[in-house]
């Protein structure tokens, strides 16, 4: 075991420590708090690189376990592990996190709760890294909940805003529903496998002994135990990763600060669900000896992913808020990752996760830069023509958009999405997910083009600016000091954008079909060899065509003639107002939830209240009246029968009490004397006992 395995725990511990320290800092010490968070994150990044190097040289899982608490003959062990999956995620999270931390110093510069923000951010990073390194489902769950808590805190960071507070509550409660399944699954797993450790030199829950036992035991509906437990845990992943039907919190979560959206709700936390499925993949994919079709669990994952992917993409088409578009896009992309996991295994899903993390963080930070530049405006109808004011943002955002759209051959998004489509195409159960995913990809390219056209092309439509009110857009004066004028963000914000843009480009080449280094690294074999499989080129061509078609459609509808005013309805809205409304309201799912679950809960509460008020209250009243009557009878008996007896007895008791009180005269030495006499008596008793 190399030294790094022992110290992997420092990677989450450092940001947590930073969070703990900055929690104690006074509000005014902004620089120390930010510096602490950034330094801790940089240190974690360095450590993560070391861990990555260690994992490169030895791809088999290396673990460090210790027993945490013991009750009866059961021992709960915790631990951490280092395998390629962990290493890749560590590097990604620390790197993206570091960039976003740096970006946040610029973005949150004017916020009075700057210190608190960095405290939460560092705590979040710690929790997320804890999820990644955990070698025990229990530890993973703990960190998972830390992540959930910080997500709540950060979404509701501007808690004075009632919508933010509501969004925070929504996110917390929705993910909790999923976590309930997770918890049940975890308990069940412990009951069956007697351990929650993933790898424990042959005894872990993910290793062949336990898995083969779980895979052949069946439970209700012929499900294997492994599938059932996997599905329960998948509930947690669904909540966290915003899969339909638990996705509702994710778009609302955009009420939080934009760096938070970038870090938590695009790049890392929502990926935790995907990561969780990738982590327990051996459990999900375990099947008996004779069955070879994908397990029920993986099928469910695929279908949920496919539905989510298509759902998110369609809804994103009809949004106005720049961040909501990205949010629904995230939902959709998470669906892709789930498809990838379901049909192609962890390598495929994780590859998309990593590339997505970079370009989605880029997009969110770009959106943040746009919002920052437009003084808080989030409606894309009120933007436009920003490429002149914010060239750097435009450039990087464009790269992110191309990556998300899957522009052929050059960007990372293409390669990772292509791998998913290819795997889906070859899925043995059904072709439908492939078609759903393809449609989703088309829509993805379309809505991204739409968004870019709205934001960066055309004319400026900010309120207070007529379309041509800015006569000299390039003069230094108006750029930097104009009150409502869009302006380019400071370097501390654009520098991370540039770095992320570079990676959004470059990362794809780690996993091209010609050189599938990433996949082989994750799968643990070192044969970096190009595999020419049938239909590969065809799929690539198909996905290229889809992406280009989507971009072209978008440009056709939105880019060809510039949008003139902010009141002008969308092109699609003009054509299909009903459909657009449905999509804009995200299939009315929130309304449906409101009408069903929320109302049901309200009614239940009201019913309980009524029951309480009338039925139980009446019963209590009746009983109390009965008791009162009894008491009256009793007091009669008391007064004339019992009192006489009591009077005589209390007299004797009070006499005894007075006698006892004489013993306690408040004189210390008297007490000591009694103790001394008692000692004499005790020694005499003991001696007598011995003598006998």
């Amino acid at each position, binding site marked *: 075991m190399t030294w790094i395995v022992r110290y992997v725990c420092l990677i989450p511990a450092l940001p947590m420590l930073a969070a703990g320290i900055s929690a104690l800092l006074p509000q005014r010490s902004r620089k120390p708090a930010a510096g602490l968070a950034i330094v801790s994150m940089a240190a974690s990044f360095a450590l993560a690189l070391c861990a990555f190097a260690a994992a490169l040289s030895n791809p088999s899982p290396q673990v460090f376990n210790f027993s945490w608490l013991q009750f009866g003959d059961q021992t709960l062990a915790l631990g951490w592990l280092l395998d390629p999956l962990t290493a890749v995620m560590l590097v990604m999270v620390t790197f993206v996190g570091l960039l976003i931390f740096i970006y946040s110093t610029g973005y949150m510069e004017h916020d009075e709760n700057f210190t608190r923000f960095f405290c939460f951010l560092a705590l979040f990073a710690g929790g997320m890294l804890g999820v990644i390194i955990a070698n025990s489902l229990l530890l993973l769950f703990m960190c998972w909940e830390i992540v959930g808590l910080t997500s709540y805190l950060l979404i509701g960071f501007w808690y004075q805003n009632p919508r933010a507070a509501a969004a925070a509550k929504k996110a917390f409660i929705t993910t909790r529903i999923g976590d309930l399944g997770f918890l049940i699954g975890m308990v069940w797993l412990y009951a069956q496998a007697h351990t929650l450790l993933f790898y424990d030199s042959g005894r872990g829950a993910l290793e062949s002994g336990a898995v083969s036992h779980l895979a052949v035991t069946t439970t209700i509906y012929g499900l294997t135990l492994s599938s059932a437990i996997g599905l329960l845990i998948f509930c947690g992943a669904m909540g966290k990763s915003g899969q339909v039907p638990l996705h509702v919190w994710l778009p609302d979560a955009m009420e939080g600060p934009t760096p938070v959206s970038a870090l938590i709700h695009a790049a890392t936390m929502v990926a935790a669900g995907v990561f969780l499925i990738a982590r327990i993949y051996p459990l999900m994919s375990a099947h008996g000896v004779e069955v070879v079709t994908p397990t029920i669990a993986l099928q469910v994952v695929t279908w949920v992913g496919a539905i989510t992917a298509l759902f998110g993409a369609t809804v994103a088409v009809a949004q106005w808020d720049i961040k909501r578009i990205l949010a629904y896009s995230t939902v959709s992309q998470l669906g892709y990752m789930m498809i990838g996991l379901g049909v192609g295994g962890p390598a495929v899903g994780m590859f998309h996760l990593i590339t997505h993390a970079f370009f989605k963080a880029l997009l969110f930070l770009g959106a943040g830069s746009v919002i920052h530049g437009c003084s808080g405006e989030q409606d894309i109808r009120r933007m436009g023509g920003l490429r002149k004011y914010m060239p750097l943002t435009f450039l990087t955002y464009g790269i992110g958009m191309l990556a998300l759209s899957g522009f052929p051959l050059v960007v990372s998004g293409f390669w990772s999405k292509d791998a998913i489509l290819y795997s889906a195409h070859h899925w043995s159960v059904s072709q439908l997910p492939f078609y759903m995913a393809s449609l989703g990809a088309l829509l993805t390219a379309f809505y991204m083009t739409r968004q870019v056209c709205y934001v960066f092309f055309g004319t400026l439509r900010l309120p207070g600016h007529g379309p041509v009110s800015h006569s000299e857009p390039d003069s230094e004066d108006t750029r930097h000091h104009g009150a409502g004028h869009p302006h380019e963000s400071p370097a501390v914000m654009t520098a991370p954008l540039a770095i992320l843009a570079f990676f959004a480009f470059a990362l794809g080449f780690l996993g091209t079909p010609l050189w599938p280094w990433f996949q082989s690294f994750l799968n643990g074999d070192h044969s970096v060899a190009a595999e020419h499989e049938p239909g590969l080129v065809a799929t690539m061509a198909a996905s290229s065509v889809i992406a280009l078609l989507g971009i072209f459609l978008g440009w056709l509808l939105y880019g060809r003639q510039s949008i003139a005013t902010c009141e002008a309805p969308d092109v699609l809205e003009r054509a299909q107002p009903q459909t657009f409304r449905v999509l804009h309201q995200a299939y009315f799912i929130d309304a449906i939830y409101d009408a069903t679950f929320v109302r049901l809960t309200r009614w239940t509460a009201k019913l309980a209240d009524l029951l309480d008020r009338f039925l139980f209250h009446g019963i209590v009243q009746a009983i109390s009246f009965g008791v009162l009557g009894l008491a009256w009878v009793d007091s009669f008996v008391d007064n004339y029968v019992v009192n006489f007896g009591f009077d005589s007895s209390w007299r004797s008791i009070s006499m005894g009490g007075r006698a006892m009180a004489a013993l306690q*005269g*408040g*004189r*210390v*030495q008297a007490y*000591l*004397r009694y103790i*001394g006499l008692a000692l004499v008596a005790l020694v005499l008793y003991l001696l007598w006992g011995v003598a006998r």
Partner: protein
Amino acid sequence: MTGLQAYLLLSSLLFAIGLAGALTRRNAILVLIGIELMLNAANINFIAFWHYGPATTYITGVMFAIFSISVAAAEAAVGLAIIVAAYRHSHTIDLDSMNSLKG
């Protein structure tokens, strides 16, 4: 009389004298000192039993004496502080007249 018995006898005499002091003195400080003496008598027992025990490598007796000394030091500090506070309150440390809980 063996060696151990001599030590035990000495310690019980010390204990009894300490007890007598604690029981008969009026001065609260001296009562406290009597109690300290009783603790010391116990320490003598620990050390004596250790010395005459089966193996001197088992130093439980010594450790016990050390801890007992530490506790006694804490006890003396707090006890004397209480006496000083009580004196400030009632202007006497005569135990015979300090028998009321009322202020």
